[in-house]
């Protein structure tokens, strides 16, 4: 298939394809980060994760309307403010959901699965009622939608760069938060030993709420980011859920490093296969490979071998 091309052409195509793989990696990782916190740290299966993402996207949509109506001069940078709003909005909804629903269900992971599925149906219908059944078009500043020409034949999409940068920042943020900050240490302590954490004076209920809300907030940021590459509609969130869970599970639920490795290997596998076969088959083969590996190594890519 490559006979008709010069080496230079091939080189630039492969460079761009490698970059496409990196973008996919960032997308998967960003989707999975919030879930990795909620599922990995708390053991809660949040099937409404996609709907939280879409809430972030809708908030971005509303913010863009706000700016184009009232602050047209600042439209070029509205996106970053929208991301903050998206985080706050989903964080608040996350706290509310934790308080009304999730906190009754710790230690019953399969029940959190059913309840959050119910929640996702309700949110979908809510979006449909508020924003209408159609997808909404989120207008982005022009500078974000262009591409940057590295050479004559290599063009790097700007939105892909932005996704990668946001993912990098959020990942480092989450990592530092969990490892360094007081809140993060508390949250890890609660995960490791709830009773003991409670005994040494950590308000476990508050830590739980904060952790869950944080996961939702990150989903909101992811949703805002994906307005650059995907669609925003009441049911768009459902598209993400299987991929997201597979990334987290494949990585070994409790390990942030695992999530990163897993997002990386899945994205590379998929984008390489997509290049050589049809998109549908690439998707099937990728999912299948992940499942087969999970069957051989159920604990995921990264997990500590521990004394049971």
């Amino acid at each position, binding site marked *: 298939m490559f006979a008709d091309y010069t080496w230079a052409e091939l080189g630039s195509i492969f460079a761009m*394809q490698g970059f496409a793989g990196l973008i996919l990696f960032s997308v998967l990782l960003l989707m999975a980060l919030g879930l990795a916190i909620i599922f990995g740290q708390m053991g809660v299966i949040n099937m409404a994760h996609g709907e939280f993402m879409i809430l972030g996207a809708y908030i971005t949509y509303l913010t863009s309307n706000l700016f184009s109506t009232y602050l047209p001069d600042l439209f070029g940078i509205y996106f970053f403010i929208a991301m903050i709003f998206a985080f706050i909005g989903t964080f608040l909804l996350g706290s509310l959901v934790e308080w009304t629903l999730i906190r009754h269900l710790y230690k019953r992971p399969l029940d959190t699965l059913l309840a959050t599925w119910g929640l996702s149906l309700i949110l979908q219908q809510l979006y449909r009622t508020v924003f209408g059944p*159609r997808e909404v078009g989120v207008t982005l500043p022009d500078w974000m939608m262009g*591409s940057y020409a590295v050479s004559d034949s290599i063009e790097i*999409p700007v939105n*892909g760069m932005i996704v990668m940068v946001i993912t990098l920042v959020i990942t480092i943020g989450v990592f530092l938060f969990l490892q360094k900050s007081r809140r993060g240490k508390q949250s890890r302590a609660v995960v490791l030993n709830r009773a003991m954490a409670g005994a040494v004076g950590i308000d476990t209920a508050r830590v739980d709420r904060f952790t869950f809300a944080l996961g939702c907030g990150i989903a909101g940021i992811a949703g805002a980011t994906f307005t650059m*590459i995907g*669609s925003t509609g009441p049911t768009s969130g459902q598209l993400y859920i299987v991929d997201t869970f597979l990334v987290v599970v494949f990585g070994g639920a409790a390990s942030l490093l695992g999530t990163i490795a897993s997002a990386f290997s899945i994205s590379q596998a998929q984008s390489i296969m997509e290049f050589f076969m049809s*998109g549908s088959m690439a*998707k099937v083969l990728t999912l299948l490979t992940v499942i087969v590996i999970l069957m051989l190594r159920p604990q995921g890519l990264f997990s500590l071998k521990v004394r049971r």
Partner: protein
Amino acid sequence: MKKEISSSRLGTTRRTLLKGLAALPAAMVLASSSYAADVNTTGLAVTDDTVKVGILHSITGTMAISETGSVQAEKLAIQQINDMGGVLGRKIEYIQEDGASDWPTFAEKSKKLLVNDKVAAVFGCWTSASRKAALPVFEQYNGMLFYPTFYEGLEQSPNVIYTGQEATQQILKGIDWAKETKGAKKFFLLGSDYIWPRTSNKIARKHIEKLGLKVVGEEYYPLGHTQFNSVINKIKLKKPDVIFTTVVGGSNVAFYKQLKAAGIDLTKEKPLVLTLSVTEDEILGIGGENVDGLYASMKYFQSLPNDNNKKFVAEFKKMWGEKSVIGDVTQAAYLGPWIWKAAVEKAGSFDVDAIKKTLPGIELTTAPEGYVKVHPNHHLWSKSRIGHAKADGTFDVVYESKDLIEPNPFPKGYQ
């Protein structure tokens, strides 16, 4: 007794009943209207001043995005018909059911509309899958379905009127145009992975090869797929003159945004992107700025300059708001009630068997798309048009076939 063994037996009892009830008030109603029993020998839900029809689309689920416009158009047509005095002097009352984007539900609701509600006609279905599911129900209970979507063809049921274009009507002229006007030689076919894109691309490929041109790639992605960077790279590698796309739904949003971000500026037409599946409706979700310069091949665009259309667009916006837009399917859905009205009035009867006889040859001169005519194969004669998308989300019509194109759902040589 509630139990019904067969529809025909019920029909008889119902008819006698209706005759008796209808006799008195009927004498006092419009002189033009005939007795309910005379225009309705099969027990349809027709009284002396009303007739019931069904509207069957997805209000919920993933397809609600696409089907909303059709519902609005059908309601508008029904209201306009009622304002003009109805059909055979009877006001149309519609019963709306939700197909919920779930194909068995379409079959179930079709049966409900035909068997329980006894509607005289149903305007509905959108995806091929929903139509395929509902079709046996319409054939079994002898109902009449007006189906608005452009679709893959390969079907011809006496119980369906296809008001959208079948694949050859939409594709062949589009490719001819790309060759003649744009000098296109190499095509890249891209679609969502299901029957309509696959069939469309099959027809397109045959036609491209017949014209002595070349297909340099053919790719399918699962419905709802949102990552197109790899295929965009493949496209760059193959350097086609035309990307011929049949991607549908939310995937479109992702595709055009990523295409733009990858530096493929549609206005430069290198390559040119020709779609069968992006109407004004879809552009709302994609964002006009992302499809500026896109070409679409279909029979209707909101910007068609004729008077019928101007009036239609104005009334549609009056009913559903200034911001609403009208796509190809929406217009086709609007035709449904009008064609049905014309057929009923020509037959002087609501009976499905009667309108089956009068439907072929029915003409509408008032259609927003211009003149249309029902072919004996139950599809419409219609024109082929190419629209050129602008950043404001509307299309400029850059090409219009001189004559009406004959519908050909089983195209010889393209299968």
